[in-house]
């Protein structure tokens, strides 16, 4: 059982990496300004929906990756030290921008969704 679950894990990781590679290769070859990984995500979503890839085969690997997303991101945030001068010089613009844009995103999405939801249910 132990061996089997490990095998499933490896297979899932292989599938996910191959989709990432496919996305990156397509972006490199076509030169479209789109994140290769996100294209990989879309291709994998499509393949799951079409039944070309079984959800079970990537489940263990996907769960491991998604549950530890925050850890993978830490070294990038640490990289902000390199930009501390920009951050301190523009702290007010940044704070206000973050606050207002988060509020805008919340209210615009919520209002439109609520209105359309009501129209749809009538």
């Amino acid at each position, binding site marked *: 059982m132990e061996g089997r679950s490990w095998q499933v894990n490896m297979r899932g990781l292989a599938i996910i990496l191959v989709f990432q590679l496919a996305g990156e290769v397509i972006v490199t070859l076509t030169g479209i300004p789109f994140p290769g*990984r996100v294209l990989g995500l879309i291709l994998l979503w499509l393949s799951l929906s079409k039944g070309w890839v079984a959800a079970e085969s990537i489940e263990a690997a996907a769960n491991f990756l998604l549950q530890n997303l925050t850890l993978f991101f830490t070294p990038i945030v640490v990289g*902000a030290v390199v930009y501390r001068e920009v951050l301190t010089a523009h702290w007010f613009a940044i704070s206000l921008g973050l606050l207002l844009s988060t509020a805008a995103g919340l209210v615009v999405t919520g209002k439109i969704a609520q209105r359309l939801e009501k129209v749809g249910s009538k």
Partner: protein
Amino acid sequence: MTDDLGALTEIVSSKTFGAAVTVSVFLLAQRLHRRYPSPITHPLLISSLGIILLLEVLGIEYSRYNHGGELISFLLGPATVALALPLYRRTEEVRRRVVVILTSVGAGAAAAMVVAAGVVRLLGGGPRLVLSMIPKSVTTPIAVEISAIIGGEGALTGVFVVLTGILGAVFGPELLRACGIKDEKAMGLALGTASHGIGTGRALKEGETIGAYSGLAMGLAGVITAILAPLAVIVFGWF
């Protein structure tokens, strides 16, 4: 003495050092967050500050630390692709409400982008700062890659992403209710669109429906922003 220093430099520049420090400090931050659960003690915020402090005290440059740090952040790539699984699980939900979901998430993502870039630009931020602000509402791995494509700085975007998530998690549901948005699906879509995974964490505490829709919106907003951000940059001439 010089040899000792040389050996020390070699150690802190090794891949092992950066990787070991990252995982260990993160583990401690996670424990702290479990003991004092709050968006302000988010493990990403605490662990990043902890590592920055450690590097500062030991006098280690970021580029040295990042030899090992890169090993950890590489996994963001496959993690982004893995987001396909939760999205796939909700494909039916998307199909049934495709108009509501795509319109609201698309408009919200666009509003967040324009306001973020507009405010910073009006208050005198340079192009690199403005471009780094644009993708900051979406889930971390996608935001960092969009930032690199449009000419921002991934590390800056990373910090903005985390702060945005914390803001959304701290006052999101309260703001929505104050604005008369009480429909659970609408609340979930709003939280996921405006404050990605950290907001989704709060959404899950508000209720199962809110959490599920927030998770869905988080993935979709990432994809939509990846499409819209380069367009916004061209349209507004932010290059």
